[in-house]
């Protein structure tokens, strides 16, 4: 009997081994290498030497503090807008009106098509001379002249956020829709029998029951948004004059663009620390919710 159990454990480990080795080689080892490199002056040259905390000393200056603050503002507004638009979208798609399965289908394209191609289309839309947004604003007489959204720091910042929101909204919508549909129908029926109105039912039944799903989804969005690279790189490459340079863009420019692997790795380590912090708070929130439920 004991033998059978041991062989079962052995079998399970054999099944896990390939995937575990793959992840160890492609994710864990690079993670350790990042920390290691962050203490070196590694570059394109074959050899490198350890420089202690020099890379970290150098990045803690005003420019980098601005990058961190910018990253947090960018991430915060992107996640907030994704959650608001996505949850509203989910409630609309949950409404019992004819055609809703078609509407659900039409929500998916931004998330399914290659991200980069969706971003190319946004690039054209933001074009000041010929793009749709500037064009429609002028046609409706809201602005006098053309606006080149990606040419000015302030508008480029918001333009990249809007595109990030656009890519994130389908997943949030479908996820929140699944959460809404999981709310037991008899709760609504009981409340309806007692004469509760639609808004009251939403506030007292739907909304409280959606909070765990909202926290989970905000967390998933937060991590994805914090890591967002493609959108900014394709639309602005971090410009104009650094106004859309987030931590991940800064890391890429330093490490890959200028071949300063050591300095880039130090930036990557900081990103990882922030991500771990987010996860820590996420699990705390989930724990508190589950103990409250009991």
């Amino acid at each position, binding site marked *: 009997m004991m033998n059978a159990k041991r062989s079962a454990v052995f079998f399970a480990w054999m099944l896990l081994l390939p995937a575990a080795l793959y992840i160890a080689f492609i994710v864990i080892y690079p993670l350790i290498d990042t920390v290691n490199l962050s203490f070196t002056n590694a570059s394109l040259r074959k050899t490198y030497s350890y420089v202690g905390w020099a890379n970290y000393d150098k990045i803690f200056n005003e420019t980098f503090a601005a990058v961190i603050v910018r990253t947090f503002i960018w991430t915060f507004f992107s996640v907030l807008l994704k959650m608001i638009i996505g949850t509203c979208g989910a409630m609309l798609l949950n409404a019992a009106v004819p055609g809703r399965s078609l509407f659900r289908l039409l929500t998916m394209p931004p998330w399914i098509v290659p991200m980069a191609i969706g971003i190319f289309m946004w690039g054209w839309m933001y074009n000041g001379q010929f793009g749709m947004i500037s064009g429609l604003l002028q046609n409706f007489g809201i602005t006098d002249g053309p606006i080149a959204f990606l040419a000015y720091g302030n508008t480029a910042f918001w333009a990249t956020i809007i595109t990030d929101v656009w890519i994130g909204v389908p997943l949030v919508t479908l996820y929140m829709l699944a959460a809404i549909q999981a709310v037991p129908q008899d709760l609504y029926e009981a409340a309806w029998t007692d004469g509760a109105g639609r808004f009251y039912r939403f506030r007292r039944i739907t909304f409280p029951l959606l909070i765990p799903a909202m926290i989970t989804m905000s967390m998933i969005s937060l991590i994805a948004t914090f890591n967002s690279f493609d959108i900014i790189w394709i639309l602005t490459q971090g410009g104009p004059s650094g106004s859309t340079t987030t931590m991940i863009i800064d890391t890429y420019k330093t490490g*890959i663009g200028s071949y300063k692997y050591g300095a880039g790795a130090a930036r990557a380590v900081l990103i990882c620390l922030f991500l771990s912090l987010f996860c820590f708070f996420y699990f705390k929130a989930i724990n508190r919710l589950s103990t409250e439920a009991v």
Partner: protein
Amino acid sequence: MSKQTAMINRYKWYEVISIYAAIAVFLFFVLAPFVEGFLVSLKPLSRLFSSPYRFWPEHGSFDAYFTMWDSVPNFGLYVFNSIFISTVVTVVVLILVVPAAYAFARFEFSGRGPLLAAFLAVNMFSGAVLLIPLFRLMRSLGILNTYAAMIVPGAAFLIPTAIWLLRTYMMRIPKELEEAAYVDGATRLYTLRRIILPLAMPGITVVAITTFIGAYAQQFIYALTFNSKTEFMPLPIGLFAYFGRQEVIWNELMAASFVGIAPALIVIFFLQRYLVSGLTAGAVK
């Protein structure tokens, strides 16, 4: 749906109108880039760069869909590369994930919980964060500027979600089936191959589809960083090169984009039910 539910959901006429209006605004936001991209692909280049802005194309035609094959000579190759890379990524992920998900779903061993958590924690780090060591790793493996440089890291970051999805599915297969097989003297490997795999096929299909879509949608950063050879470029990178040029042939590039995303759109149309169930699974529980 019970009669009572039907009554709860009855809307007044003005409520129906406002719901449709709100859905229209929502869908406009979601679909505007595609509408604009499509209209641009119909506009002749001379009309495209004319002010004032016109939403509808004048003298619209599908010419760009034919001329783009000359302007983007490697277009067919780019699409092939995209599909090829996604297919190999999907196969690699499935080979690694099917046994691992079965181990997590069925066997009890010390360290199972932490190991599963460790797999899921991989989701936290995108490839973008680990790009510098990955670049060095690819260089020392000697696979920079090959398909492998885009496939190997691409697969790694799709494994955690795939394990999670398939594990959830396999946990629903009744244990009694395996126990009966063991009683009949079947080995564990035989049981996995002949009993679990056929029963898990629908779940494996969902994982394969979501992995393929994920691999197809995310082809950018590895291809941008680890490959500089035109013959291996996937579609997004192939087209990206044209956007940096002095004279961007927007109508033809939009036409090329639409032909390039057609496979994904066809997939959505036929497999939407699998997609939704696959990607929102575990959402609520």
